[in-house]
Each structure stands twice: as C-alpha cells, then as structure tokens.
C-alpha cells in the first residue's frame, strides 16, 4: 500500500495545507494541483512580464516552510506547480529535484499565449525511480500526479489498464483537495465543514484504494462526499486521459470505518491523441453593477443603458438585469435590483473609457444612482480552446537536477 495525500486543489488553495498534511499523520507522497485552464492564462501573463516566472509562486512559499520537514519525514512531493516553467521552479528548490518538461507546444501553436499538452504519469514515475525527493511538472493531468507515484511504487506496466484506471479514480477524487472531504457539498448541513481536512488515498497494488484523511481533521469522507467529487468536471463515463481510459461506470464505492473504499474500476487503452490546453488573448474587459432601488426599475435600467450606449457605443456590451428587488420592502437592500454590464473589446482604451463613462453618469442618471463598486481600468481576457495532437508529436521528458 502507498499513502498519497493532496495539499492543493488550485492555485490559491489553503497555504497551510502542506504543513497540515505533513504533520497530521503518516504519508509516503504529497501531491498538489495548481493548474486550471484559467491558471495557465494567469501564468502566461506572468511569463510575459518576466520570463523567469510562469510557475505557481505559492508552492515556493510552501517549500520554504515545509521542504525540510518533508525531507525529514521521508515524504516525497509531486506537484504540477511548475506551470509554464517547471525548470525555473525546480532550480529554486534545495533538494534532489526532478522535473517534467515537453508539454509546451507554443512553437506548434504560435498564435496562442499558452499551448500545453496534458502529459501523463510516466515521466513522474521516472523521476521518482531515479530518486527525486521533489517532482515538479508543468501541464500534466491532475490525476497523473497520483498515478505516477503509484505506478513507480508498484512497478506497474504501461498496459496495466485496470490498475492505472483505479489510480486515476483515486487521483480524480484527490485533485480538488477538500472537495472530497465535504467542501462544496450539497448535504453540508449533515457534517461539520468548518475546516475540512485534505484527502488521502491509500492505494493498493491492484489499483483499488481507501479514500481517507488524517485523524482529527474536519469535514468527512463518506460515500456521498466521494460521489460528489467523482462527478466533478467529467463528461462521458469513458474518461479519457493520457495514461488510460477510465470507465467511471465500473467504479464501486463502499463505506469504510476510516473513509470510503474504491474498487472494481476498469481501464482500457488511452486515445492516440493528447489534449492540448490553448489560451489566446481575446481582448479587454471591464464591468460594473448599477443598483436600481424602488419604483420604475425597468425604466431606470432603460435610461442608464441608453446613456452608456450614447457615451461609448453599444458594441461589445452585455447587460443583465437581476430583479432581486421586492415590492414594498422593509430594507433598502431588499428594495433593490442589480443591473450588471460587461464590455468586451479589442481596444484597451475603450475598456478603460467604459469606467469613466459609467461614473460620469453619477449625478446625471436615474434617481438613487449608485454602483456596488467603482469599475477599474479593465483587464485582458483569454479565450480557452482544446486541441488534440498525435502522441508522437509530443516528447515528454523527465530531467533530474
């Protein structure tokens, strides 16, 4: 059995989770997911400003705090915090570090701000086989962070489909951190989720596992909390990944005194193509929310809409009127509706001018004019697309420093 924990479900997750997982009990490997489609865009913009960046900076802070503790306890760290610059991050860590590279396909997709193939588990396994204490990757699938250490530990073969599928399910349950232990959970009133603990998978040689968490941590691991996370961000029951196709309709969950046992998972060969996450800059956006209180809400909305169109033009504006107002209300807030407006434009000056135009209406528009927060200068926005490339067009590499 190998005990694999998770300490991060996204870039910005609980900073102290790394320490909590290391101090809370026994672990063999601690993983963390820092990358979402949106995060790649944020890191892409970091990299534009400074080419030595492009990784998840919070992970570096966690390592300053916890690397010595992890080494002392013999817990190996496996994270995708490398983002767009795994080598740059790896060189900042004082340990035996391996990194995974080869996901960057920007030369193949030159029009994109970021273009990264979703790599799999085997380069992670190779780093661990060569003795890495810390493994830093760029874009690998979230579940591969768990599959890699399990495959290395048990010496699985690349066609051990059922085992790889079992570990993929464990990885999918872990990848969003506390979403497996009662966070973002429909039946939250039935458990105490004040401070849910981070999840752990105890994975067996056959790929089955026990989902659990350290004793004394909050939240819960139940068949329902695990079911909720299994359903997160999936499509068809045949879940395609770079390592294996996992059949979610074969997964069996059983309650266990320390959590939930997962077994029965079937796997089959993965597709011949790898998915690529593409982000391109779409333009600039800005937004504000007008508060419309009391009588004549529809007419008030019409007036401000007409005025803003006059000032900066209609093109690229999206309006939503949320009729949160109630008749004859006892509080001002309950008497108010919210009129949201967003501008999307190729012209950064127009995105900035939107703020000025909106605020210039303050004394010249509907009675009771105010906004929930003053609009800013506008920000660039990205467009996400998935692409697919043949496996032989991607050369993933494991590098040990």
């Amino acid at each position: 059995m190998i005990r694999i924990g998770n300490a991060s479900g996204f870039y910005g997750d609980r900073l102290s989770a790394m320490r909590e997982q290391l101090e809370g009990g026994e672990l063999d490997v601690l993983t963390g997911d820092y990358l979402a489609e949106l995060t790649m865009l944020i890191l892409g913009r970091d990299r534009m400003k400074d080419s030595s960046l492009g990784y998840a900076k919070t992970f570096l802070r966690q390592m300053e705090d916890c690397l010595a503790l992890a080494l002392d306890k013999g817990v190996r760290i496996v994270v995708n915090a490398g983002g767009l610059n795994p080598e740059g991050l790896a060189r900042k860590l004082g340990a035996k570090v391996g990194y995974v590279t080869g996901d960057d396909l920007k030369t193949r997709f030159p029009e994109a701000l970021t273009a990264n193939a979703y790599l799999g588990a085997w380069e992670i396994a190779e780093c661990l086989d060569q003795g890495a204490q810390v493994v830093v990757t760029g874009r690998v699938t979230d579940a591969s962070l768990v599959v890699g250490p399990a495959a290395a530990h048990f010496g699985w073969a690349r066609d051990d489909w059922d085992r790889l599928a079992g570990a993929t399910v464990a990885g999918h349950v872990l990848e969003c951190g506390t979403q497996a232990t009662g966070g973002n959970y429909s039946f939250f009133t039935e458990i105490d989720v004040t401070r849910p603990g981070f999840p752990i998978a105890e994975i067996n040689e056959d790929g089955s596992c026990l989902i659990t968490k350290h004793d004394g941590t909050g939240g819960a691991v139940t068949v329902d909390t695990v079911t909720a996370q299994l359903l997160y961000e999936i499509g068809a029951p045949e879940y395609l990944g770079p390592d294996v196709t996992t059949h979610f309709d074969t997964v069996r969950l059983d309650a266990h005194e320390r959590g939930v046992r997962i077994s029965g998972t079937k796997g089959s060969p993965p597709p011949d193509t790898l998915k690529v996450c593409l982000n391109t800059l779409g333009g600039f956006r800005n937004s504000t929310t007008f508060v419309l209180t009391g009588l004549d809400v529809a007419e008030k909305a019409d007036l401000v809409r007409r005025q803003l169109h006059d000032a900066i033009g209609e093109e690229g504006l999206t309006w939503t009127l949320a009729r949160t107002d109630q008749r004859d209300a006892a509080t001002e807030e309950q008497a108010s509706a919210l009129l949201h407006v967003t501008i999307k434009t190729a012209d950064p000056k127009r995105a900035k001018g939107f703020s000025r135009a909106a605020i210039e209406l303050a004394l010249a528009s509907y009675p009771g004019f105010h906004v929930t927060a003053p609009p800013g200068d506008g920000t660039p926005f990205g467009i996400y697309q998935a692409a697919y490339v043949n496996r032989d067009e991607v050369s993933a590499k494991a590098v040990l420093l």
Partner: protein
Amino acid sequence: MKRPLGTIAGARSGDKGGDANLGVWVRSDDAFAWLNGFLTTEKLKELLPEATEVSRYELPNLRALNFVLHGLLGDGVASSTRFDPQAKALGEWLRSREVEIPEELL
C-alpha cells in the same frame, strides 16, 4: 408531492472550457430508479431553461446522472459574461427547482 429536487438529490457542477458539467446523485436504489426515469434531457432543459444543447450520461453504480451543457459558458471562464462564469452553482440552482417527488422517497 412538489418539493425541491435537492430534498433527495445532491449535485456538483463545474466548467470545462465553454461547456458546463452537472452531476446529480441520489442516496438509494429506489431514488435512482425514479431519478433516472424523471430527469431526462428534456426535463433538465425545462428546469434550467438556459440549457440548450445537453448530453446525458447514466452512472447507475454511483446512483448518478451526469449532464454536459454544451456552450453554456461561451469561450470559457475568462471570457464568459454569464452570471457564475464557471457554473459552480448550477447544481445548487437545479436542486432548488421544485418537482413532483414520490412521497415514499421523501
């Protein structure tokens, strides 16, 4: 008896680029037999009028249905002007819709 679907069903939703996914599950085999018959693609569109192109998948082993709502989020979270651009609360919205639930399941 007309009750919120969430009286007996849990849900979790999220984004995949411009698509949203919405998983719905119940806690007994009887409840799943009802849910599987009741929550068709057409019924989902009726409860969430914003949904247009929908794929539906059955996961009886988890007593669950998974829906993919294609194109709900435009060009993805960074670009979407939808209220809740990542569809995080789509599931909780569905759970709050009132539907006829057989009394023996309540």
